[in-house]
């Protein structure tokens, strides 16, 4: 009986502690630092790039689709890398061989050019929304893309 009473009392204390603690001594779980967040983001983007490559290599994606998506992903990676350099210009980037690999840079430039060309072709002349090559009308503004095709 005494044992049960003691156990009950300890349980009560534990429950009260768990509930009251945040008010008494606020819990501080550090949110991820912006830099760390950016690094994680970039890692995720890179992983997505690899997934994309795999999708293409295993025949799950058409060439045109792949090129477009890959270029967009590369742009995002570059943007994130840029943001990382902004945040911590001295510390980050050192040892990140991928950033200084000339071949990779070449490839990115090519991809960027490609995406720019693509963007030119695949934008609605009316509103600038991205469109697919065989769309007849713009999804957003409804402009007849077939007739404006010569002009764009």
């Amino acid at each position, binding site marked *: 009986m005494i044992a049960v009473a003691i156990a*009950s009392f300890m*349980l009560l204390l534990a429950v009260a502690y768990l509930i009251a603690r945040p008010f008494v001594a606020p*819990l501080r779980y550090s949110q991820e630092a912006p830099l760390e967040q950016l690094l994680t983001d970039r890692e995720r983007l890179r992983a997505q790039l*690899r997934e994309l490559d795999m*999708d293409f290599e295993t*025949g799950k994606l058409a060439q045109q689709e792949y090129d477009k998506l890959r270029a967009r992903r590369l742009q995002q990676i570059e943007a994130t890398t840029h943001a990382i350099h902004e945040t911590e210009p001295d510390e980050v980037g050192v040892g990140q061989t991928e950033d200084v690999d000339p071949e990779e840079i070449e490839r990115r430039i090519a991809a960027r050019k490609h995406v720019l060309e693509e963007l030119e072709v695949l934008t609605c002349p009316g509103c600038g929304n991205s469109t697919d090559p065989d769309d007849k009308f713009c999804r957003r503004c409804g402009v007849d893309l077939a007739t404006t095709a010569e002009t764009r």
Partner: protein
Amino acid sequence: MTLLGDFALLLALIAGGWTVVIGFAGARTGREETIRSAEGAMKAAALALTVAAGSLAVLLLQKDFSVEYVAQYTSRSLSVFYTVGAFWAGQAGSLLLWAWVLSLIGAAVVFQNRARNRDLMPWVTVTIGVVIVFFTILVTFYANPFDTLPVAPADGQGLNPLLQNYGQWVHPIALYLGFVGFTVPFAFAVAALVTGRLGDRWIRTVRRWTLWAWVLLTAGILFGARWAYVELGWGGYWAWDPVENASLLPWLVGTAYLHSVVVQEKRGMLKVWNVALAIGAFAMSIFGTFLTRSGIVSSVHAFAESSMGPLLLGFAFLSVVIGTALIVWRLPLLRPSGRVGSLVSREAAFLLTNLLFVGMTIVVLWGTIYPIVSQAVRGVEVSVGPSFFQALMAPLTIVLIALVGACPLLAWRRASGKHLKRNFTVPLSVGATTFVVLTVLNRGAHTLVVLVLALGAFVLATVTMEMYRGLAARHLHHGESWPRALLNLFAFTPRRYGGPIIHAGVVVMLAGIAFNVGLKEEREAQLSVGESLEVAGTTVTFEDLVFEQTPVKFALIGTFRATDADGNDLGTIRAEQAEFEGQQRVTEVGMRSTLASDLYVVMNNVDPTERIATVLVFHEPAVFWIWTGMVIIVLGGILAAWPWRTDRASRVGAEELELPSAFEEPEVAR
């Protein structure tokens, strides 16, 4: 001990109530310490329920028969193994287990997201809190396992002999965990709807939770089917019993959800589907509990009946109503960021998959509740037999198998003619060849079995090609050796290759079922010792009948000898009819299993003086392959759900990662 248990339940109720009320206040005001306090209360509820569960376990092990629950489900002679297993043999214990596991999951979710998803967490906490409170109320006020008897009996009633099977440790536990697990995607879906953050972050967060829930539910169903087959003596593994359907309903919706979310992650589409399916899977879990617990339908699980049916039904209904209202309110935010570009695309195939699963859910749901509805509305008692389910589920399943084979071969957005030719030539030829060869061999008989096998061959060809392409891609582009490529394929993208393994398992299982349904034979005859009967070319002779008396049971044991068509001896089979002390009569099935078929012998109405018995013999083809397929499914699920690389430190800067890919703009977690 009962005092401690009751006190712990009360504390759990208070802590749960705090989680809901203070959590709601915190969610509205956004005050950090209020939200943290609600999360702390969730942990407190988990602690209190752990103490409650521990108390019940101690009471069971002490065999304290002054406690009604203990007296009802255990006895002095019951082994420790089944004494602990008696925890969830009855209503009160099952519900306590449910509430306890849910609170542990809630605490784990809170801990996992202590520095992540802070925008969603208040609502997640409140939602899980509401479910915990609901079940704790049921345990405390409607089915309390700590209720005592005025006078303690000398001995307990003992555990139902049907439950004295190792399955008691696997089947209910796995099912409960599966049911409870679907609370997590539900809570995150609600949180995503309330906060309007409807990108794919909530889906990625609950991915592993959902996969585990699915794997456990699948394993629970598998063990249930196996248990019914070896123990109940009706020669089957699935009877479209309402309680079996109860487990199938959340499984169907959950399976649709797991497929559907891929499209949102990849293409930002089917968002309405995904929130609806997450809510539906949870509602179906509660509805399944209602079917099992309400006693509204008669079934082998009738021992679980109680009066709390309306509460469970109301709760399931409420979750659907609230979920629907939230979805309607958020419809403008649920607009897809892409669209189905073509009917011959993977998006379209996924959409069709969803429709098929929903169709199956409706069939099972309607077949299950129709007798209840008919009884209530027209006052006419009807029963919906297996033929209704088979007639409707078979065609849907066949289309689904075809889709399992075709979907991985289709490209996203739109598949070009060249692409289709490149991908479909081999698998389609394999499927067509199988169909033609088998049709010729069978001279046109057994069309349905042949069709399922041909489609199965098509799927297996797809899976093989898929694996081969993955390997080849790693081998060629990454310069990895073949074994290395195989290892990396699984290690880095387990999800991508867990799926095909599950699909292969599904095909093996369905082929087994098709064989079994198409070629099953049964014979029943009254035999006296020395006589025999023949089924599917095998002669079964009733050789001997003996008694056996032990302190717990009185058994009549029949020995049967099987011989094949050429007179070769296939060994003996032992079937049993036993009467447990103070309990119902139980038949123990005699079985001889081979890879090709099982010989399944049941002995009824035994007359020991005349040495005569009604003997029922089943020829059960391909049952082994049904179990094998199910085991493959579960293993594939574990492979996909396993936390291969979760360590935060190794994640950043790691060479390869298992991460979902989004074709559209990824939502960055903050």
